Structures are given as structure tokens and as C-alpha cells.
């Protein structure tokens, strides 16, 4: 008869009385832990979470606390008659393991195995079977849901207010005011306008915002008969830009002036694109450059070259790392959210103005939360900040 506890007790005794040898067990003995297996919350039903705590007094502390001691996780489906299979290995003192890739609504049973030295293994009894279940909501993201609903309510609320005729004010944005001046300058000088809509695809909000401004610029160039060139790094952006410019020329009553080749594709590579645009600037000497959208390191290459040819330059980006370069080299720079306010500012459409107001109110709410959170954290209350942190 195997007395499971005895070898462990002998081992503890040996440890207590100064024996330096590893736990004196037979080839396999019981691992004295409490093992609990439960469905992982807020998942797609393919995961179970194991937690274990050593039985106090029965497992040597040296084994339980040693960073190098690893435990093997073994699993078997309840309906399966096959042997347990190893599914993972983690430090014992982690106390937890998440097993994923499981079949939902299938019961599994687990046990742990620990190498105690000299080829000996301590193996726990199998825990009670557990079944992974699909959840309908990620509860740890309730904070994101609350914030999303709040922002949506504010934006939609102000849009509805604008629809009812409430007058909404947006402060001057000098970069947008200067668009007319830039187009006028190019028209007077008889030179073209170069519009660079950023280097990222049309799924990026900054590119969408840039295309909004492009529509306005295109309407002006159509009206005044100024040449417009829009070189693109992304084919999807090119396709969208082409439609926008075409539509703008149609609205301005000059559809015959639109040339498809004016909105064209250059290359997908960042620096090859910068080199090509620089080449256009140096050869064709546009009178006005618009550098609006998502930019990276090529921002200074483009803006400095534009500065060297004497063009009036209007830039706009939400990339904080590129703003300093644009501010240094361009005549007007739209900073961050000024870019996203452009479509509202230029069109003065009440619905879009309403969304800007909602966004501003959300920012006020965030400021209040930051101040409140800072005060509470200083007072030692961390739950408020922690609620925002969990995702």
C-alpha cells in the first residue's frame, strides 16, 4: 500500500533536520496542493483557468518558493479514455495557468506534476472537471463601454442640438483660414498646388480628415482653374482622393477640367515616396504645398524642400513626433485635433459642428477625471484610477 503523505513528511523531516538532499520520494508521489479549475471569464469559450495553492505545511517552502521550480500541467477530456497529455509548463510559484484552444462545452480534467529532483515526480490528484463556456461580454472592458457610450451620447446629443438650430461656435484655425490665401497665391503665380495626403491608408482617421480638406482645396482649384497634383503612397487613398477631386470639380461646374492623372500613385515605400515628391517640388516648383495627414520621418524632408523652393506651406498632422518639424518648416500647421475639425470648419455644416462640440465636451470630462484622479491618488485612493486601467 502506498502511503502518499509519508514520503513527503519524511522529506520535510530531512529538511528540518538539516539534510541537504532533495525531497526523498518514490518515483511518483502526491503533490500536496489545492487545485481549482474554472471557466475563464469574458472569453470565447475556449479557455479554462487553473489556480493552485500549496497545502500549508505539507510542501517544503523551498520547493514552493523556488523560482526555478516548474510545474507541468496535464489535461484530459472527461469523455476521453486516453492518458493525460502535457499542455504547459510554468513556474510553480506563479500559482496560475490559463489553458486555451479548448472546445467549448467540453468537460476537461487537470492535474499538476512537479519534478522534485533525481527523476522523482510529485503529481496532484485530478481536480474536479470544468467546462469552458462562451461569454457574451468582456466584463473587464465595461470601463471602455461606459466611456464609448458617454462620448457617443455627447457627440450625438450636440449633433441633434445643431439640427434643432442651436448656434455652435468654433475658434479660428489659422491653417484652415490660410487655404484660400494659398490657392489664391498659386493662381496668381500661375503655378500648381501640390497636395500630399499623408503616407498611410484610408482606414486612418487622419487620412480621412485630409481627404475632407482635399475636397475643399479641389473645389477652389476647379473654380480658379489652378493646377492641382495629388501624389499618393497608398492605392486605396489614391482611389478615394480621385473620387473626391472629381466630385469637387463636378460641384464647381468644371468637370472637363478634371484630369485623372493629377491624382496618381507613386510608390509604397516611405522614402522613395519622399524622394519622388521632393523631385516634383524641385522640378515643378509648386506655389503652395499642403502636407496634411499621417506622416513619419519624411515630414521634414518634404517640408524643408518645400521651404527651399519658396512655396507657401500648410501642414496638419496628429503625429506628435512630426509636429515640431512642420512647425519649424511650414507657414501654418494644424496641430492634432485641429486637423479633425477641418471638415466642420470648412463646411460650417451644423451636424459636423455638433460633433466637434461633443468632442470638446468629452475632453472637458476627461480633464475633470484627470484632476479628480490625481487628487484621489494623492490621498491614497487608487480604485478610481484602477477602474480606468483594466482593459
Amino acid at each position, binding site marked *: 500500500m502506498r502511503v502518499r503523505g509519508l514520503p513527503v513528511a519524511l522529506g520535510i523531516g530531512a529538511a528540518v533536520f538539516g539534510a541537504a538532499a532533495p525531497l526523498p520520494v518514490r518515483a511518483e508521489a502526491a503533490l500536496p496542493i489545492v487545485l481549482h479549475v474554472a471557466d475563464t471569464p469574458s472569453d470565447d469559450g475556449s479557455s479554462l483557468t487553473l489556480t493552485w495553492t500549496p497545502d500549508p505545511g505539507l510542501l517544503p517552502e523551498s520547493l514552493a518558493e523556488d523560482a526555478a521550480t516548474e510545474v507541468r500541467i496535464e489535461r484530459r477530456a472527461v469523455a476521453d479514455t486516453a492518458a493525460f497529455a502535457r499542455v504547459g509548463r510554468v513556474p510553480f510559484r506563479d500559482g496560475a495557468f490559463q489553458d486555451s484552444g479548448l472546445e467549448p462545452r467540453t468537460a476537461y480534467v487537470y492535474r499538476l506534476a512537479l519534478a522534485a529532483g533525481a527523476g522523482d515526480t510529485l503529481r496532484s490528484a485530478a481536480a474536479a472537471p470544468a467546462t469552458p463556456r462562451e461569454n457574451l461580454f468582456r466584463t473587464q472592458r465595461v470601463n471602455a463601454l461606459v466611456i464609448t457610450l458617454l462620448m457617443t451620447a455627447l457627440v450625438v446629443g450636440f449633433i441633434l442640438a445643431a439640427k434643432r438650430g442651436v448656434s455652435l461656435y468654433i475658434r479660428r484655425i489659422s491653417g484652415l483660414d490660410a487655404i484660400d490665401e494659398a490657392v489664391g497665391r498659386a493662381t496668381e503665380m500661375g503655378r500648381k498646388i501640390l497636395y500630399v495626403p499623408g503616407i498611410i491608408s484610408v482606414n486612418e482617421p487622419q487620412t480621412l480628415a485630409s481627404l475632407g480638406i482635399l475636397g475643399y482645396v479641389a473645389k477652389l482649384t476647379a473654380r480658379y482653374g489652378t493646377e492641382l497634383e495629388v501624389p499618393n503612397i497608398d492605392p486605396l487613398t489614391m482611389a478615394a482622393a480621385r473620387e473626391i477631386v472629381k466630385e469637387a470639380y463636378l460641384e464647381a461646374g468644371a468637370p472637363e477640367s478634371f484630369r485623372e492623372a493629377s491624382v496618381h*500613385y507613386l510608390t509604397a515605400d516611405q522614402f522613395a515616396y519622399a524622394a519622388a515628391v521632393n523631385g516634383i517640388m524641385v522640378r515643378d516648383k509648386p506655389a503652395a504645398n499642403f502636407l496634411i495627414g499621417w506622416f513619419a520621418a519624411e515630414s521634414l524632408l518634404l517640408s524643408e524642400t518645400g521651404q527651399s523652393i519658396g512655396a507657401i506651406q500648410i501642414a496638419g498632422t496628429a503625429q506628435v513626433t512630426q509636429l515640431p518639424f512642420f512647425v519649424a518648416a511650414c507657414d501654418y500647421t494644424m496641430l492634432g485635433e485641429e486637423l479633425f475639425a477641418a471638415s466642420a470648419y470648412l463646411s460650417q455644416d451644423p451636424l459636423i459642428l455638433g*460633433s466637434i462640440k461633443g468632442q470638446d465636451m468629452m*475632453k472637458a470630462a476627461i480633464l475633470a477625471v484627470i484632476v479628480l484622479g490625481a487628487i484621489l491618488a494623492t490621498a491614497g485612493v487608487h480604485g478610481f484610477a484602477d477602474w480606468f486601467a483594466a482593459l
Partner: protein
Amino acid sequence: MKRQIPILLAIGASLYPVVAFFVPTRGVTRFNQTLDEWMVIIASFALLLGIVSMIQVNLAKVRRRTSGWPFGLIVLVAFAIMAAFGVFGRQGARPDGGLYPFTWVFQFGFSPLQSTMFSVLAFYVASASYRAFRVRNVEATLLLIGALIIMIGRIPLGEMIHPVVPDVAEWIMKFPNTAAQRGVIIGAALGAAAMSIRVMVGIERPYLGKS
């Protein structure tokens, strides 16, 4: 109908990932992944559009001998050569230790050109700094002082001047810089979110050519 269908598609496609962010069920997640895959496929097909546009524009340039037409010719020839190497050849190292032509051109042509373009930034930073950093007003002076401290503090010269200089530079990076960056990031994120809501509810429709 011609306008309604794209609007409905845009609203659906933009709302669905938001739902998928909160709902972990397999069906929802799977379709969300499918949407991501479709995006990759559409982008790949759109690349064809781009290539056609590039060829058309440069061919026209060469034919009409407009300003800079030799560069257009180089673009077309380089495109044809690399396309041939890529489609008909292999990539990586050859069994004899050499490189296949595609990789050779990438390693000894494309990579040095990329590095060179990036390096040009150093010269442009110098000329832009010389021109832009002027003590025109209080804010510009503060900006100038901060920039000088950071530039000196990030090189060994800073510590040679005084051991506290790198610490001051690090403090500026950790506190005023971080605070300013966070402010812009929060504002830009809100702007992007508001823009996305406008697209989601159909107010802003850039995909229809409507700004």
C-alpha cells in the same frame, strides 16, 4: 440605392469591430478576423490600381518628354526589372553563397538608398533649426532653451559640462515633454474618435467622394 448601399456598408463595417471589441463569442470574433482579411485582400487588389496609375503617368511623361522625363524612364525600367526578378526568380541566399538578383538589388541598391534618404534628415534638421529657432518671444525662447538642454544632455558633452545636465534633460523628457505629448495624443485620439463616429452614423462620407 446607389448612395444608400455604400453608406449602409460603411456603417456596418465600422460598427462591427466596435461590437467585436466587447463581445468575445467565436462567431463575432471569426467574422471580425474575416473583415481584417478582406481588408488585406482589398489592399492587395488596390495595389494593382496603383501600379497601373504609376505606369500610365510615367509612360505619358516619357512620351511627351515633360520636365523630369528621364526619371520616369528610370522608374519604368526599374519596376520592370524588379518585377521580373521577383516573379521569375527566387529570394534570399543562393546555395553557392551568393544572393539571388532580387535580394542583391534589395541589399545593395534599395537599402543604401533608404538609409541615405533617412540620413539626409540630419542635414535638414540643421538647416531647419538654424532658420526656425529664433528668440522672437517668450515661448520661442523657452522652446530654444529646452531644445539646447536636451541636445547637450543627450551627448557625452552634457556630462562633461556638469553631471546634472543629463539629469535635467531626462527630467524635461519625463515631465514637460510627456505632459505635452499626452495632451496632444488625447486631443488627437478624441478627434479621431469623433471623426469615426461621424463616419459610423453616415454624416461624413469620404468614400463617396463627399467631403
